[in-house]
C-alpha cells in the first residue's frame, strides 16, 4: 500500500504524535516548528484526499485491520473533506501567526506545552471529522475539549480561569448527554458504527428510546456548538483566552460541533426522520433565528472588541442552524457554505485583533482611540473581514448570505429572510463602531505601540485575501457543499 492509501489515518496520527514530541523536545521554537509542520501536513493530506474523492463516494479505512462494525473504521466523505480543509488550513495559517503572538502572551517555559495542547485540539477535531464510529466521536471530542480548557485558561486575565471552568462544566454535561444518547442507540441496535446505525435505526425509530436518544444527542451537541440558549460559555471563553486561541476556536471548534450535529441528523437518522417526522426543523429554525437576533443585538453594546466578535459568532452559528432547519437542498448547502466562509471571516477578524492586542496591549474600544492610523495594514485586514461579516458583495460573507436568503425565499419564509437582512444591518452597526473608533477619532499620542512582525502580517493577510478570493471564485466552496448535500440528503435509508 502506498502512502496515499494511509492518508485518512495519517491526518489524525500526525498531529496526535506532534503533541508528545513537543513535550519531549521542550523547546519553544522547536515546538512551534513541529506544530506548523504537522498542520501543513494535514492540509496537504486533505488536498490529497480531495483528489482521491473525485472517483469514489467516500474513503474508508479500517483501523487495526478489523472491518466495521467489529472494528473502528475511518470514513471520509465530501462533508468530512470540507471540514478537514477548513481545519487544516485555519490551523496552518494561525500557527504562522502564532510565532510572535504566543511569545508575547504566554510565559516562555509554558510555550512547548501550549503548542502540545494546540496540537491535541487539532488532532481531536480531525479525529472527530474522519471517524465513522459514534463512540470514537465521544473519545476524540473529549481530547479536544480537555486541551481547549487548558488553552482558554492561559489568558492573562484571571477571568480566563473562571471562563475555562464554566466551559468545563457545561462541556462535560454536554459530552455526557451525547454519551447517553449513543448508549440508548446502542441498546436498541447493538452497534456503534455510523453507517451500520443508519441502516438499523429505521426499524426502531418509533421507540421511545430512540426519540430520547435523539433529544440527548442534540442537546449535548447544542451545548458544544453554542446553540441558543446553551451558549453561555462562549463569550467569556473567547474574550479572555489568548488571541491565537480565540482565533483557532472560532474557526474550528464550534464548526466541528455543528458538523457532528449534521452527521447525526442527516447521515445517522436521515433527513426524513430528524427534520420531517419530529418537529425538530421548526425548533432549529426558531433557536437559530433567536440566536441571530440576540447575538447581533448584544454585540452592538459591547466595549471589548473580542466580546463583540464572540457575540457575533453566536449569531453566525444561529444562521447555520437556521439554514439546517430548512431541511432543503438549498438550505443545507447554505449552511455548509457558511461553515466554510465563517471560518475564514472570524479567523481574519480574531487574528487582526491579535495583532492589535500585540501592538497596543488592549482590545477595548474606550482605550483604542485612533488605532487605525497607527496600524494601517492590520486595520485594513480587519475592514475586509468586517465587510465580509456584514455581507458586502465581493466577499465570502456575501455568498453565504445570498444562498441563505434565496433558500429562505424559496421556502416562502419572508419574515426570516428579512430577519437575516436586519441582522446584517446590526452587523454593520457593531463593525461600524469599531471602524469609527479606529479611523475617525484622534490618535492618542501617549499610547505605546509595537511594530507587528512579518509572520503575523503574513498569516493575517492570507486569511483576509482568501475572503476576497472565495468571494469571487466560489467553485470550491459551493462545489464541495453541493456535493456534500447530495450525499447527505440523497442518502435515503
Amino acid at each position: 500500500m502506498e502512502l496515499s492509501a494511509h492518508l485518512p489515518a495519517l491526518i489524525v496520527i500526525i498531529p496526535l504524535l506532534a503533541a508528545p514530541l513537543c513535550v519531549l523536545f521542550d523547546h519553544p521554537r522547536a515546538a512551534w516548528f513541529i506544530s506548523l509542520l504537522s498542520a501543513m501536513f494535514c492540509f496537504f493530506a486533505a488536498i490529497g484526499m480531495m483528489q482521491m474523492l473525485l472517483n469514489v463516494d467516500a474513503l474508508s479505512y479500517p483501523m487495526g485491520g478489523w472491518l466495521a462494525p467489529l472494528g473502528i473504521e475511518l470514513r471520509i466523505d465530501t462533508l468530512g473533506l470540507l471540514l478537514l480543509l477548513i481545519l487544516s488550513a485555519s490551523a496552518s495559517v494561525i500557527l504562522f501567526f502564532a510565532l510572535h503572538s504566543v511569545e508575547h502572551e504566554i510565559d516562555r517555559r509554558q510555550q512547548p506545552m501550549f503548542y502540545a495542547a494546540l496540537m491535541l485540539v487539532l488532532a481531536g477535531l480531525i479525529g472527530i471529522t474522519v471517524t465513522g464510529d459514534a463512540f470514537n466521536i465521544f473519545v476524540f471530542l473529549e481530547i479536544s475539549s480537555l486541551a481547549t480548557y487548558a488553552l482558554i485558561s492561559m489568558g492573562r486575565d484571571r477571568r480566563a480561569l473562571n471562563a475555562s471552568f464554566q466551559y468545563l462544566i457545561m462541556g462535560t454535561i454536554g459530552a455526557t448527554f451525547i454519551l447517553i444518547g449513543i448508549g440508548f442507540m446502542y441498546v436498541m441496535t447493538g452497534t456503534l458504527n455510523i453507517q451500520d446505525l443508519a441502516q438499523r435505526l429505521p426499524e426502531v425509530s418509533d421507540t421511545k428510546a430512540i426519540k430520547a436518544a435523539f433529544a440527548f444527542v442534540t442537546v449535548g451537541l447544542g451545548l458544544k456548538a453554542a446553540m441558543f440558549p446553551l451558549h453561555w460559555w462562549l463569550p467569556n471563553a473567547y474574550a479572555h483566552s489568548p488571541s491565537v486561541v480565540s482565533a483557532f476556536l472560532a474557526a474550528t471548534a464550534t464548526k466541528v460541533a455543528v458538523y457532528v450535529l449534521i452527521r447525526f441528523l442527516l447521515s445517522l437518522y436521515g433527513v426524513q426522520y430528524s427534520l420531517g417526522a419530529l418537529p425538530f426543523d421548526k425548533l432549529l429554525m426558531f433557536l437559530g433565528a433567536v440566536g441571530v437576533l440576540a447575538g447581533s443585538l448584544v454585540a452592538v453594546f459591547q466595549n471589548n472588541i473580542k466580546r463583540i466578535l464572540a457575540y457575533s459568532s453566536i449569531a453566525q452559528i444561529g444562521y447555520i442552524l437556521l439554514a439546517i432547519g430548512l431541511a432543503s437542498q438549498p438550505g443545507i448547502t447554505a449552511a455548509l457554505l457558511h461553515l466554510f466562509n465563517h471560518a475564514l471571516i472570524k479567523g481574519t477578524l480574531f487574528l487582526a485583533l491579535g495583532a492589535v492586542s500585540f501592538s497596543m496591549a488592549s482590545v477595548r474600544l474606550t482605550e483604542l482611540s485612533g488605532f487605525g492610523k497607527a496600524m494601517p495594514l492590520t486595520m485594513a485586514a480587519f475592514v475586509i473581514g468586517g465587510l465580509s461579516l456584514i455581507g458586502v458583495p465581493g466577499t465570502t460573507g456575501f455568498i453565504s448570505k445570498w444562498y441563505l436568503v434565496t433558500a429562505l425565499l424559496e421556502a416562502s419564509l419572508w419574515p426570516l429572510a428579512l430577519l437575516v437582512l436586519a441582522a446584517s444591518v446590526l452587523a454593520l452597526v457593531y463593525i461600524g463602531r469599531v471602524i469609527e473608533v479606529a479611523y475617525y477619532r484622534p490618535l492618542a499620542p501617549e499610547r505605546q505601540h509595537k511594530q507587528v512582525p512579518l509572520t503575523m502580517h503574513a498569516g493575517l493577510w492570507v486569511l483576509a485575501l482568501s475572503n476576497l478570493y472565495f468571494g469571487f471564485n466560489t467553485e470550491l466552496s459551493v462545489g464541495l457543499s453541493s456535493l456534500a448535500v447530495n450525499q447527505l440528503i440523497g442518502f435515503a435509508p
Partner: protein
Amino acid sequence: MNEILGHFNYLIVVLLMMMGLYVVIASPNLIKKLIGLSLFQASVFILFITFGKVSGGGPPILSQQLTAYSNPLPHVLILTAIVVGVATTAVGLALIVRVYEAYGTTDEDEIDAMDNADDKPVV
C-alpha cells in the same frame, strides 16, 4: 410484574443521575459542582454496564466453566469513559485551585460578584 422489576434498576440509575445533575446546577461551590458532575457521570456508567449483563452469564473471560458470557462491549466503552471522566475531574480540580488562588474563594456567586465589580483586567 417482571417487566417492572426488570426496569426498576433503570429508574434507580436515573434518580442517581438526576441527583448528580442537580448538584452541578444548584450548588455554588465549585468543588461540589465537580463532585456532582462525577456522580452524574458515574451513574451513566452504571446504566451502561447494566445493559451488558446477561442472566446466567459470567465475566467475559473465556474459560471452560462458563457457557454464557456477559457482553464485553459495554465494559470496553465504560473503561474508556471512566478514564475520560477522571481526566476531566483532574483538570477541573486544577482549575479550581487556580481560581481559588486568584479570587480567594471557591464560591461561584462571590466570584461572579468580583468579576462584575472590577471590569478592568486583573493579572
